[in-house]
């Protein structure tokens, strides 16, 4: 029982501290798409930075210290921007890491 509680707490704490949210988005075919998505996501006070990759159908956000944006809110924001979210995950890699990986993949 203690083990279950410990694991649950660890997961919750991990999610709460996760600095990067990565979304797989369909319909990204142009720079204007990226521009609209960035503009929408940067309006959220919890957003620190945004990276968009057309090649990887990726929209990644870093959140401000100790803050998170719920999945439903992210999905709504992207839907309101005119795009379809196909998956959301929280990762520990930074946006700088993502930028470096994207640059290396070119």
């Amino acid at each position, binding site marked *: 029982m203690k083990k279950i509680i410990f694991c649950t707490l660890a997961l919750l704490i991990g999610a709460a501290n996760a600095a990067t949210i990565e979304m797989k988005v369909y*319909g990204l*075919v142009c*720079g*204007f798409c990226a*521009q*609209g998505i960035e503009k929408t996501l940067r309006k959220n006070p919890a957003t620190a930075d945004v990276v968009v*990759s*057309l090649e990887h159908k990726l929209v990644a956000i870093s959140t401000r210290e100790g803050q998170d944006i719920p999945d439903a809110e992210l999905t709504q924001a992207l839907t*309101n*921007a005119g795009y379809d979210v196909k998956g959301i995950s929280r990762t520990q890699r930074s946006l700088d890491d993502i930028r470096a990986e994207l640059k290396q993949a070119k």
Partner: protein
Amino acid sequence: MNLFRTAFAGLVLAGACGTAQAKPIAFAHGTTVMAEYGAGTMNEAQIFYAPKYFYSLGAGYLELESDIDGRRREITYARVNYLPKRWNLEDAQANVFVWGGAGQAYMSENNDHTFTWNAGGQIDYETRRIYSSLKTDLYRSDAFSHRIDTLQLGVAPYKHDIDTLATWFVVQGRNYTGGIHDGIEWAFLLRLFKGSGWIEAGVSDDGKLQAMAMVNF
């Protein structure tokens, strides 16, 4: 005419360099400013603001000059654009746009002004390597009716991303009704865009300049 040329030059100088297709709605809370010089037959300038991703409001100026008998139309209008359907696919996007508006037209043959309304639509399909669009624009009044149908097919030599310059080679076919141009006017265009701006230029089948600039912000 001077107003149009000034607006067009302003857009080019603003650094117009994206989507591969001109769309009446760029993104939610975005403003689109566009100017087109169409081989001396058609000049157009538009400005639209989109409160939501599926509609935008704005105004435009269209100048048509017949290369058959020299008649000219200068149409100013207010317009609403609506996106009834979008398909977001893994590597592509397709859209259906419709629009309608009303305004005033100057007619050179009787040096008079008249009320005019307009309606139109566009369907498009785009990946990062190919795109196609078909657009129709109808302008009507008690004194005239002009429809402008435009087909564009484009191919990109490489896939661009948000931090690279997009390059497209485009073939355009345009048909005018109402005595503006006889037959289909073909044009071959080079289109470049990066960030918030886009510029394209080319030549029509009768050797005239065809150019367009657009900025989204």
